[in-house]
């Protein structure tokens, strides 16, 4: 089932949570609403589910307006951030709840419910835990019960509110892959909210980046990452260095460094260029056409890449990521003077939303 969000606005007192949101989610996609806390992503999810009412605008499922449908009638699966499992019910009873509260005419009989619940528990690999209570499960297990419970009513759309937010890093990673596989299996239109860009990039078909109640960009993960529409998206999707300098023709000058730009630009005295740490390289000698001098302030060699923090000649902090091989080759130490140069020309220049 496709979801369409039309001109949704929502305010809480003085605070504008959502400002005229328009969004289309095609059938069967897995979409991430990504943004910092307070950007309105959870509010949007709750409005889609019907738990919250918009001040104006409408939600359409398969082209059909949902304004007069209550949350009970929308048949959505909702997974809460803190699971919201019924604490006095066993895992089995939790998963069976959605089926057992149906009006008598539509309610499946006991054996059928049992069969369906065990099917779901098998899918989330918890069939041996049917008689446990939620408090006897780990966080990851509870989240899987919550998912099975949401899927029990055969929802037309699945909504997940920060589904992995309360879990530790390792379980998070596992569940992410598991959610992706699950979605590939059942193909129910799904929307999940997250503030973790890595999670959104890894799991979602499409990413919707939100900020202060507005949508900044919608696109496939690689699109959003490589072609950010606004400085906010660029900044939110990873670490970055900012250079303020002067643009003239095909050159961007900052301090003693000048960077070649791929295209001719009008003259601009205070241009801003963004470069990601992995787009910069270090060397002991000024072997390149454009470079600048800086001192190493800190090195973090733990992990697959080495993160180097430097102080540029104009006294700004610069972050550079290099490979372990390069780190060993250069034999870097704290306090050394090194030369920084851009690896390629894939840098982003913003000048009144003009990018390249």
């Amino acid at each position: 089932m496709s979801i369409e969000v039309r001109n949704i606005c929502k305010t809480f007192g003085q605070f504008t949570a959502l400002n005229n949101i328009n969004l289309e989610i095609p059938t069967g996609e897995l979409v991430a609403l990504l943004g910092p806390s307070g950007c309105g992503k959870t509010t949007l999810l709750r409005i889609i589910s019907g738990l919250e009412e918009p001040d104006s605008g409408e939600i359409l499922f398969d082209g059909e307006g949902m304004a007069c449908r209550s949350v009970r009638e929308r048949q959505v699966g909702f997974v809460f951030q803190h699971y919201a499992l019924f604490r006095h019910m066993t895992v089995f009873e939790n998963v069976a709840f959605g089926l057992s509260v149906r009006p008598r005419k539509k309610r499946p009989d006991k054996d059928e419910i049992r069969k369906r619940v065990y099917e779901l528990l098998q899918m989330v690999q918890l069939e041996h835990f049917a008689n446990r209570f939620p408090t006897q499960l780990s966080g990851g297990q509870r989240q899987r019960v919550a998912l099975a419970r949401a899927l029990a009513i055969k929802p037309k759309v699945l909504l997940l509110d920060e589904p992995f937010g309360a879990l530790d890093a390792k379980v998070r990673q596992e569940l992410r892959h598991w959610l992706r596989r699950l979605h590939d299996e059942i193909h129910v239109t799904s929307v999940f909210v997250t503030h973790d860009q890595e999670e959104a990039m890894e799991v979602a078909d499409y990413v919707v980046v939100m900020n202060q109640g507005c949508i900044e960009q919608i696109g496939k993960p690689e699109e959003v990452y490589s072609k950010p529409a606004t400085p906010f998206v660029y900044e939110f999707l990873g670490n970055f260095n900012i250079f303020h300098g002067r643009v003239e023709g095909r050159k961007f000058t900052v301090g003693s460094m000048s960077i070649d730009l791929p295209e001719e630009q009008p003259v601009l005295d205070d241009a801003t260029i963004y470069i990601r740490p992995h787009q910069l390289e270090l060397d002991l000698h000024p072997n390149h056409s454009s470079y600048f001098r800086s001192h190493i302030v800190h090195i973090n060699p733990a992990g697959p890449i080495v993160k180097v923090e430097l102080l540029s000649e104009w006294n700004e902090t610069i972050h550079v990521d290099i490979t372990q091989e390069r780190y060993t080759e250069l034999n870097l130490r704290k306090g050394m003077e090194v030369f920084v140069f851009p690896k390629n020309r894939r840098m982003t220049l913003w000048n009144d939303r003009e990018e390249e």
Partner: protein
Amino acid sequence: MKEEVLPVTRVGRKACAITEPRWVRWCLTVGALSFLALFLLVPLLAVFINALDKGISAYWAAIVEPEAWAAIKLTLTATLVAVSINMIFGVAAAWAIAKFEFVGKNILTTLIDLPFAVSPVISGLVFVLLFGAQGLFAPVIESLGIKIIFATPGIILATVFVTFPFIARELIPVMQEQGTEEEEAALVLGANGWQTFWRVTLPNIKWGLLYGVILCTARAMGEFGAVSVVSGHIRGLTNTLPLHVEILYNEYNFSAAFAVASLLALIAVLTLIIKSIVEWQTQRKLSSQDESKTN
């Protein structure tokens, strides 16, 4: 995160740094226990000793005497009705305050505490002024042909008023702490309001509710001031147990007065025991949750 990572401090395990030296602990314990003995245990014993002053047969006679028996029945009726009414309204008020935002919420919260703040005698008097022969609603009541003041309805009304806060007060923090997420989950899964209440909300508050009901019952049975004003002290008709004790005592019928008083004392002790069991159960439930969290 909160539940997973932070170690849960078990109830009963104390850090060495905050324990007092042995003699201080000993002195405090003895002090507290002797205070309790002097002001609670001795009077309680005195009640029973005085009650059995003239032998067990006199004690029994004082209790099964028709007027005493009528007082017992009236007390039980008033308590049963008052506790039922307060249970319904207490749950409703706590539900409204804990789960919804509305205009006048703070006023409602304050109003719930009103019976605690007003002297019971005054609240009894209010009912007399409203429903009495010269009262505000006197014409209405007369035309309907019912009697409220100096009759059972008045006693029930006064009891309801005085014991209203117990259940609501007990439930509000419980419900606030539990939040609304489970109810939302139930709604999303297709449950209607009634199903949500019976299958999700009520099971979650049952221990708090039981605790409130016990306190409310104890207070309803023992209520004297408000009931005294509206009852009219008609023997065998509008006398509750506490009022009956007072009448017997004023007639210098001490052993009978203490015999009936011992009944009330027994009820109080029984209530305390049930209350401890409920508390112990709740504690056990909580600690078993903690244990599974730390595992």
